């Protein structure tokens, strides 16, 4: 039970442990005791009619149990957050880190939003109990669950008109079942709405193939990938980026893959492409169709070549015609088509990015389906049968319809759970005004957000880490969402609420059975309040028993399987056989014809970290730099460099965007690689009621989304741009954009052909001189790291994992602007610049046009290099930083007095200094008034329950102290202690120590281990001809080797 072991051994759920319980003196087993204790507590609580009552499932420690469940040791729970399987690391029963579950078979990977969900749990701006909001008056009065429930029930009984439950798309089978029963029994209509949805690509699929299951592409099997605005690295939930990375190394099994991307905005996905062709969003469909034309009509390839309607439809997309509108040369289109045909069986094309949300989005998605279909990709191993769950139609068009019904007074009750349409619906939908017409609006969101502010009641639901629930996963799996902590506030999970209210509204079956098990209602008043977590718990057990396990709860068979589901975090759902895939000839009509584009078009894309803005009060996400622009906090409109220079703009100059009648003032940003005629702006910002941290950060780009003919458009929007002459400085976490690698060989990179000629290509650098220092002896372990830049896609999940693991504070936008950022590991993003002979390169701050118009993007994770001859160690007068005998450059916070000499002398600038007191709120009222920064920092880092997020293994640093990456020394020491305890004398197996960054890295780019152990992976990587240790010239001898980023230049 020590260190990171397989979750199988570690994931228990709360009280109902399955390990044999030792018999105590009382003769009562622990399990019995807990059961008894739980029911007594529940009964007591019921008698006192309290809402927050002790439950029988989550029992706090009173005595240390004798099994492995010890304080001071991390425990891991496999659960799901937002439909993504995760492993939650807890300490002392507090969740402290959300990591990927390495043993989970689902292909899905974590998004940064999932990682940062931990901070949402402790968010002090969550409502701490039910509130009577009294819309319009602005008064918020605490109330009780009973009051909310009773109001709802009596209203449902009396009011005439529909009752509507508005939620985000719900995938969990049990949750869906209770909603279905609510629809049938209580007549509550369910409407799904997501501001950022996948509807277009699904409707393209169904247009082409009817309701056949949609297979998932396997990028690890593709040697040639063509993306049309694909964003599988920007939006990684499906896990495509993990597969993609497997073929990025030059010596990958099956050869290095090649990725060609057509796109208008430089996305993270495009930045990882081997070749990138700038095509504005509105022309992507035409370009894809032109390639399809080459394959189907010219080369007469695939079954569609005989489909006359398709041939006719594609004839409109002759390369010459497409060249005219899109600017992509016919030669290139023909070459790409030729390359696809040559790589048939190994080639796949992808779309699915923000560009698909434009007017031509359906055509774009269809064109990629046509190409894949013609290449026979769907019948090859390039697509596997593991289908993504079919989504519920959830686009804002649904919301517009609901708004109409609200306006017409047809809806008498509106229950909103987990969505925020007042903030994120297209303005045309007019939702806010429509909602005001509804007699009873009940919000189940977690705070008084924009939508809840217009509700009558707010009954806050729990965080996913606090409540039972379930979810459907990709790859034919379902999973239980198990709570890892008792609710911090007077809240209940959505499923609890639905089951309790459902039972009260007369649903029988499992719902009633679950309620019967969880409580004995003594009065209608109590029935109106969710009883506890047990309602959802028993409901889940019952439903799952029926549906999947085919066993009744309580039988030993059931309990074994149930425990296994909780431990492993998944259950294979027998995949229903869908209808056979058959091409529908009607699809061809949807392709349209090449259209000229507006003079200037706008793309609104989901924010990389904040996504749709639902977690916009999360300091980690707000401070997470966009991987490409490196902008934190406030958003900016991306403008192509040449246009930007022609307009005479500076980063941060406010420009006015006009789309239709909507206007927005946004800071401008010179975004390398943008198509000249395209702008881009991130969604998910500009929340007005997110909380103290996230309010009024950036602008709400949803205000520019268009709703026409039942379709929401976020790309290809006609836009005009005007300088305002005002400024709003941006918080950009990056110095120079550009690196001149001939002069500063700091990022090893080369091309595949050069690599084949010389495996050391790209690692050349000036040699260092002899060292005056005696060599260190590393008698035992010597910890080292290798980072494969070919695999690193720059997503920055390492940064976020590190922030959680190591208690790194959030410094705020002004902190970033002032250069007080704190991340221990950051991703440096450079645009590779060719050598400019005879010119001096101090002006490359923003990058010369030639470099940034068609940028070659390089990502380089930068963290403490744990140098052998660390320059920081010699200069600290207090001996606060020193070398350990296992190769760590240690920082001793207690000794640090803060001369910052070490940070100056660090050539990598990875040392971080506590410029302010971030860890607690300083008490002086006078200074808090004089220096608002004190208050801001406290709000972001230590307000309310925020301090509970801290990892107890890692010191919380005070003001005036230097800090930096420790290689997660706490995990190293834990592994060493375990080795000693087990009598292994410091022999730690390779892979037993994983720093948080490595653990979070979806692509396996980071390898950590003992370099003295010749069999370790890191020793092998460090010996690779691709390995380069930075700044040899200075003689610092880093412990981190970077492996060259190889770009596949094969034509």
């Amino acid at each position: 039970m020590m260190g990171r072991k397989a979750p199988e051994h570690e994931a228990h759920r709360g009280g109902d442990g399955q390990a044999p319980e030792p018999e105590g003196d009382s003769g009562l087993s622990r399990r019995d005791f807990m059961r008894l204790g739980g029911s007594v507590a529940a009964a007591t609580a019921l008698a006192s009619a309290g809402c927050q009552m002790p439950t029988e499932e989550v029992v706090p420690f009173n005595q240390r149990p004798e099994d492995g469940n010890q304080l001071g040791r991390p425990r891991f729970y496999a659960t799901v957050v937002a439909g993504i399987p995760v492993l939650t690391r807890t300490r002392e029963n507090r969740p402290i880190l959300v990591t990927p579950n390495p043993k989970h078979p689902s292909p899905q990977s974590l998004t940064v939003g999932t990682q940062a969900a931990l901070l949402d749990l402790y968010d002090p701006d969550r409502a701490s109990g039910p509130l009577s909001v009294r819309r319009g008056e602005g008064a918020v009065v605490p109330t009780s669950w009973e009051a909310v429930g009773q109001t709802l029930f009596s209203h449902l009984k009396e009011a005439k008109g529909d009752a509507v439950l508005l939620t985000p798309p719900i995938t969990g089978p049990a949750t869906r079942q209770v909603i279905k029963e609510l629809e049938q029994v209580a007549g509550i209509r369910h409407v799904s709405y997501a501001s950022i949805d996948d509807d277009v690509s699904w409707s393209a699929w169904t247009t082409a193939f009817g309701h056949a299951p949609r297979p998932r592409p396997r990028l690890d099997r593709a040697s040639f990938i063509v993306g049309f605005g694909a964003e599988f690295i920007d939006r990684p939930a499906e896990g495509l980026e993990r597969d993609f990375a497997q073929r990025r190394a030059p010596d990958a099994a099956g050869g290095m893959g090649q990725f060609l991307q057509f796109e208008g905005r430089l996305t993270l996905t495009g930045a990882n492409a081997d070749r990138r062709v700038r095509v504005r969003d509105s022309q992507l469909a035409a370009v894809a169709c032109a390639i399809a034309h080459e394959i189907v009509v010219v080369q007469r390839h695939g079954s569609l070549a005989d489909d006359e309607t398709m041939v006719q439809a594609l004839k409109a997309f002759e390369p010459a015609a497409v060249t005219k509108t899109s600017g992509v040369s016919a030669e290139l289109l023909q070459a790409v088509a030729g390359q696809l045909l040559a790589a048939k069986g190994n080639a796949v094309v992808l779309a699915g990015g923000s560009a698909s949300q434009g007017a031509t989005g359906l055509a774009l998605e269809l064109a990629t389906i046509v190409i894949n279909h013609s290449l026979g990709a769907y019948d090859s191993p390039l697509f596997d049968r593991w289908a993504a769950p079919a989504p519920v139609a959830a686009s804002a068009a649904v919301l517009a319809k609901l708004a109409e019904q609200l306006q017409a007074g047809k809806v008498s009750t509106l229950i909103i759970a987990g969505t925020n349409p007042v903030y994120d619906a297209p303005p045309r939908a007019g939702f806010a005004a429509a909602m005001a017409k509804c007699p009873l609006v009940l919000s189940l969101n977690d705070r008084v957000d924009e939508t809840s502010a217009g509700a009558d009641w707010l009954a806050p639901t729990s965080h996913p880490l606090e409540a039972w629930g379930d979810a459907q996963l990709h790859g034919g799996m379902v999973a239980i969402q198990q709570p890892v902590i008792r609710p911090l506030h007077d809240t209940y999970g959505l499923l609890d609420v639905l089951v309790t209210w459902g039972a009260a509204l007369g649903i029988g079956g499992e719902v009633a059975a679950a309620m019967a098990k969880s409580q004995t209602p003594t009065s209608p008043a109590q029935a109106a309040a969710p009883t506890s977590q047990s309602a959802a718990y028993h409901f889940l057990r019952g439903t799952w028993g029926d549906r999947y396990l085919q066993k009744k709860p309580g039988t030993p068979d059931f309990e074994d399987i149930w425990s296994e589901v909780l431990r492993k975090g998944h259950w294979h759902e027998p995949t229903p056989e869908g209808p056979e895939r058959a091409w529908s000839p009607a699809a061809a009509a949807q392709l349209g014809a090449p259209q000229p584009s507006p003079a200037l078009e706008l793309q609104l894309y989901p924010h990389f970290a904040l996504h749709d803005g639902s977690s916009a009060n999360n300091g980690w996400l707000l401070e997470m730099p966009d991987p490409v622009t490196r902008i934190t906090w406030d958003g900016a409109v991306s403008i192509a460099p040449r246009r930007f220079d022609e307009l005479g703009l500076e980063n941060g100059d406010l420009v006015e965007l006009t789309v239709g009648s909507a206007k927005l003032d946004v800071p401008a940003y010179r975004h390398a690689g943008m198509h000249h005629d395209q702008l881009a702006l991130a969604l998910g910002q500009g929340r007005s009621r997110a909380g103290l941290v996230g309010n009024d950060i950036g602008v709400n780009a949803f205000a520019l989304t268009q709703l026409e003919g039942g379709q929401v458009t976020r790309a290809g929007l006609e836009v005009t741009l005007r300088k305002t002459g005002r400024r709003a400085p941006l918080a950009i976490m990056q110095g120079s954009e550009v690196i001149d690698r001939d002069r500063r060989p700091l990022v090893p990179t080369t091309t595949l052909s050069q690599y084949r000629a010389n495996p050391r290509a790209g690692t050349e650098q000036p040699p260092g001189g002899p060292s005056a220092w005696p060599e260190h002896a590393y008698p035992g372990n010597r910890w080292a790291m290798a980072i494969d830049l070919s695999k690193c896609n720059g997503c920055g999940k390492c940064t976020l994992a590190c922030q959680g693991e190591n208690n790194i504070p959030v410094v705020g936008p002004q902190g970033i602007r002032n250069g007080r950022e704190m991340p221990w590991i950051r991703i440096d993003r450079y645009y590779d610049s060719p050598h400019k002979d005879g010119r001096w390169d101090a002006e490359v701050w923003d990058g010369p046009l030639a470099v940034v118009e068609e940028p070659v993007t390089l990502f380089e994770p930068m963290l403490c290099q744990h140098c052998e001859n660390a320059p920081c160690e010699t200069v600290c007068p207090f001996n606060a930083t020193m070398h350990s005998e296992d190769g760590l450059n240690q920082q001793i916070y207690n000794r640090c007095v803060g001369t910052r000499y070490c940070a100056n002398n660090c050539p990598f600038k990875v040392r971080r200094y506590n410029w302010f007191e971030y860890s607690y709120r300083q008490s002086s009222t006078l200074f808090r008034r004089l220096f608002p920064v004190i208050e801001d920092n406290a709000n972001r880092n230590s307000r309310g329950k925020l301090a509970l997020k801290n990892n107890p293994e890692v010191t919380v640093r005070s003001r005036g102290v230097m800090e930096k990456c420790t290689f997660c020394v706490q995990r190293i020491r834990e592994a060493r202690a375990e080795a000693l305890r087990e009598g292994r004398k410091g022999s730690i197996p390779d892979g037993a120590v994983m720093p948080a960054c490595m653990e979070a890295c979806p692509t396996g780019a980071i390898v950590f281990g003992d370099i003295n152990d010749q069999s370790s992976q890191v020793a092998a990587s460090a010996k690779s001809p691709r390995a380069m240790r930075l700044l040899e010239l200075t003689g610092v001898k880093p412990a981190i080797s970077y492996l060259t980023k190889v770009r596949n230049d094969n034509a």
Partner: protein
Amino acid sequence: MTTHSESLYATVMDDSQLTGGPVVREGAGPYGGDEEIAEPMVTGGKKYRDVDQDICAHTEQFPMRRWWIAFGFALTLLGVLGVSLISLFYVGEGIVGINSPVNWGTFIVNFVFWIGIGHAGTLISAVLFLFRQKWRTAINRSAEAMTLFAVACAGIFPIIHLGRPWFAYWLFPYPNDRGPLWINFNSALSWDIFAISTYGLVSLTFWYVGLLPDLATVRDRATHPWRKWIYNALSFGWTGSHRAWRHYESAYLILAAFATPLVFSVHTIVSFDFATSIMPGWHATIFPPYFVIGAIFSGFAMVITLMVIMRSVFNLKHYITLNHLEAMAKVILFTGMLVGFAYSTEFFMAWYSGSEYEGFIFKNRAFGPYGWSYFIMFTCNVIVPQIFWFKRFRRSIPVLFVAAILVNVGMWFERYVIVVTSLHRDFLPSSWGMYDMTFFDWSILAGSFGLFFTLFLLFVRFLPVIAMSEVKGVMDPKVARSTATPEEKAA
């Protein structure tokens, strides 16, 4: 011979009669050649008695209005320093402009600036003493006081720049209960502690020993018993006996010999803070001499600034004559050229080293975003002193005053250039940044001037600003001993 010099000393009544060169009398030499007579150090036909009266008077009468105004102003600035430091200590260093990558800014710039100012005093009193430069006598006392106060100003910066200044005492190596944990003797910052504290202590001792005979003079003139008692205690009961004088002279000589190497060691070691690092722009072997020369340069400029004011406010024009000021102007010219030479050598070395990073940092210094500061530095330190090739300007009080202030501005910017431009763009372009001084950067700089002027104004109020005993030693006894004043003689 004596008659000529006697008459010369007696008749040079003010600056306008001084030429800056020897007085040449054709055919008056002992062998018939020209006779060259040095111009007098003290003009106005002053007597020994006058020296006591002129110099002690300021300590004996109620201060004049101008002193009070200046003192009030200095105290206000000192208050600004206090408020700034309280804010700094409570809120943290986030309130000033330093950041990553410019982790050192205002504090270290001011530290090196003040340490540099603190160089001229000891150089004037010790080095010039050993070289028997008699003109030093008029200025050595106040120059040394300036040194002490500048060192005091400099001394606060390494402490306030710490993140946790309340642990500053950990910098001293003494047996402790923290392990015991010793300081890191590899770090140039720990060398600084020794260098600065030694320099401060030796300078103080040297200055104080030099003060003893003059304190006794003040005591002897004192009428109030308390005043007499205090100055007697301060003068260690100086008797003025031959024995006392003999011991005094030996001690002074020995202390001068002690202080002389320190003049060079302090700034050498301060320069090691930069030179022993690996940062391009800092990592340079030229730094020790470059810093020492720069320090002398700035120190002399500060002495000129102060002396020009002092001689006019306290009417000391007969003691601090134009000849003195011209001599200092020559030092400025010489050290200014050396500093200019160092600047160009840096560029040469950056190119000659072949290191991309070194080459970049110097180009960036001159032409990058902080090029303006390099321009100010270069103009003030290299171009402005060139006017001192012209005697007319060396002897013009307004020109001297303005040029000296410009040199001080330039030298402040030299440290700014070294600290800020080297740090703001180093090895990894991703971590490049900028440094903007905030209100508190400026208030602490201004406040340090407040501290300096407060101390200096107290000094001129309570202690003799010119070394009377030494000035008497360079006066012509034949003139000075005469009891009759020139007016009486004429009458």
